[in-house]
C-alpha cells in the first residue's frame, strides 16, 4: 500500500484530536483527544519506519528507530495519563465537576 494512505489516515486522526481538544468542554474527553493525537503520531511513525526500511535496502536495522520512538511515546503517554487522571480526580473532589469551563477563577 502506498504511504499516502497512512499519512492521510494519521493526519485525519490527528486533526480529529486537535479539533476535539479545541471544542470539547469535558476534561476527560479533551484528554482522550490528546491521546488520539499521540496515537496518530504513533501510527505515522510506524508507517514511516516501514517506508524507510524498504527504501534503504531492507536490512535488519534500517528504519527501526521510528518504531523505537513509538515505545517511548507509549511509555510517556502512560505516565501522562497517570498524572493527568490524578489531577482531574483532585479537581473533581474540590469542584464536583470536570467541565473545563470552570477553569476561569484565575482570570479575575
Amino acid at each position, binding site marked *: 500500500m502506498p504511504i499516502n494512505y497512512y499519512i492521510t489516515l494519521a493526519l485525519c486522526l490527528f486533526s480529529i484530536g486537535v479539533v476535539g481538544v479545541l471544542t470539547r468542554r469535558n476534561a476527560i474527553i479533551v484528554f482522550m483527544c490528546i491521546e488520539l493525537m499521540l496515537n496518530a503520531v504513533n501510527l505515522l511513525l510506524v508507517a514511516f519506519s516501514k517506508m524507510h526500511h524498504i527504501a534503504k535496502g531492507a536490512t535488519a536495522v534500517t528504519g527501526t528507530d521510528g518504531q523505537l520512538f513509538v515505545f517511548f511515546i507509549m511509555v510517556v503517554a502512560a505516565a501522562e495519563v497517570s*498524572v493527568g487522571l490524578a489531577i482531574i480526580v483532585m*479537581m473533581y473532589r474540590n469542584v464536583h465537576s470536570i467541565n473545563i469551563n470552570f477553569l476561569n477563577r484565575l482570570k479575575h
Partner: protein
Amino acid sequence: MNAVILSGLLGVVMLFASFLFQTKEPVRITAIAGTLLLLIANVLESKGIHFFSINTSGFLNFGYYSLFFNSIAIFATLIFFLISSKDMQKVGGHYAEYFALIFFILTGIFLVTSFTNLLMLFIGIEIISIPLYILTGAAKKDLKSNEAALKYFLMGSFSTGIMLMGITLIYGATGTFDIDKMNLVALEKSHLITAGLFMLLFSMCFKVSIAPFHFWTPDVYDGAPNVFTSFMATIVKVGIFIGFIHLFNTAFDKVTIQWKVWMAVMAALTLFIGNITAVFQQSVKRMLAYSSISQAGFMLFALVAMNATSYEGLIIYSLAYCLATIGVFGVISKMTDYSFEGFNGLAKHQPLVALCVTICMLSLAGIPLSAGFLAKFYMLKALIETGGYLWLVIFGVIMAAVSAYYYFRLIQAMYFKEGPNNFTQIAAGEKYVLVAICILIVFVGVFPNIIFNWLYF
C-alpha cells in the same frame, strides 16, 4: 553524564528520605547537600573528569557550552533551595517528594540542553513537564492550584502532541532523528520538512511561552504555589531555551525556509503583549508572570540572531534572569499579601529585604551596573551583528522602557507609600542568601568577563 545520573539518583534518594527522616530539617539539608554535590560533579565533568563512562554518541553530546549552562542551572537551583526551601513546607505535607520531583526536572533539563537526537529532546521535555504538572497542583486543597495544574496539563500535553507530529514529519522526510545527520538542506523542498519545522517551532514556543502561545502562562504561574512558580518561571524556562537554540541552530540553520522572520515577529508580539499587559496587573505575582513572558521575548532575540554573541548572551541572560526572579519570588513567598498594595511601606518594616527586592527589580528592568542590563545589551548586540532586524532592536528598547514602569511601580510602593506589615518573617540564613544574590547581580553586571572567562577557558 555525571549530572544526569547523579540528579536521577538524588531524586530517588529524596523519595526515600521521607521514610528515613521524621523531621523536615534533615530532608532539607540532604537536598541542599545533594545539589552541592551535583554542582561539583558537573563542574568536574566540564573540566574533563567523568565519573561514568557511558557511550551516548548519537543521543547526547555534553559539550562545554551545555555543561556550563547546566552548572548555572544547578547553581540557580541551589540558590532557590537556600532561599525558598523552607516555604515549601507551607505547600503541603509531601516535603521530600517536592525535592525529588525537582531533581527529576533537573535531569530533564540536562537532557534537553545536551541532546543531539530528537528522541532525547522529547524525553527530556516530558521529564521536565510531568513533574511540573504535579508541582503546579501540589496545593491540593487550593482551587487555584488545581485549576492551574489542570490547565497546564491539558495545554502541555497538547503542545507535546504537536511537537511529536513535527518530529514525525521530519523523520518521514529524512529517515533519522539525529539532528547532526539529517541533511535538511538537500530535502528542504519537501512539504514534510516545512510542516514539521513549523510544528516544532510552535510547540517549543508553547513551552517557553512565546506569544501567541503564551495564554496559559499567567494563569499557571499565578495559580501554582509561589515557590514552584519561582522554579518553573526561571530554571525550567531557560533550560528549554537552551534546547530550543540548540535545535534550531544545528538542524534548521541552513534551510531557506523563512522561520527567522516568523520568530522575529513572534518576539515582537511577545514583548508587546507581555509588557503592555504587565502594566495593568494588580498582583505582583501575576506581574512577574507577564514579565517572564516579556523576558522570554528578549531571549528569543538570541534565536533570531543565532550567532556567537547570542550564545554568550543567553548564558548571561539566564543567569541574570534566574537570580533576580528567584530573589523576588523568595520574598513574595514570605508575604501574606502579594498585591502591589501589600508591598506598601515594606522599606520601613524590612529595609534590607526591600533593598534586595529593589536591586532584583532594577536588574530585571535592565538598569546599568546590574546583570540584567548586560543580558539585554548582549541580546541587542547579537541582533545588531546580524545586520538586519533593526526594527526589532528599536522595538525591544522601547519595550524595555515600558517594562521599567511596572518594575519601578513596585519600588515606589515599597519606598514611598505607607502600609501595614505584610511580611511574615525571614530567617537569618535566607537574608544572607538574598544579599548574596544582590551582590552577585551587581558583580556580574560590573565584571561580566569573569563569566565569559569560565565559558571559554
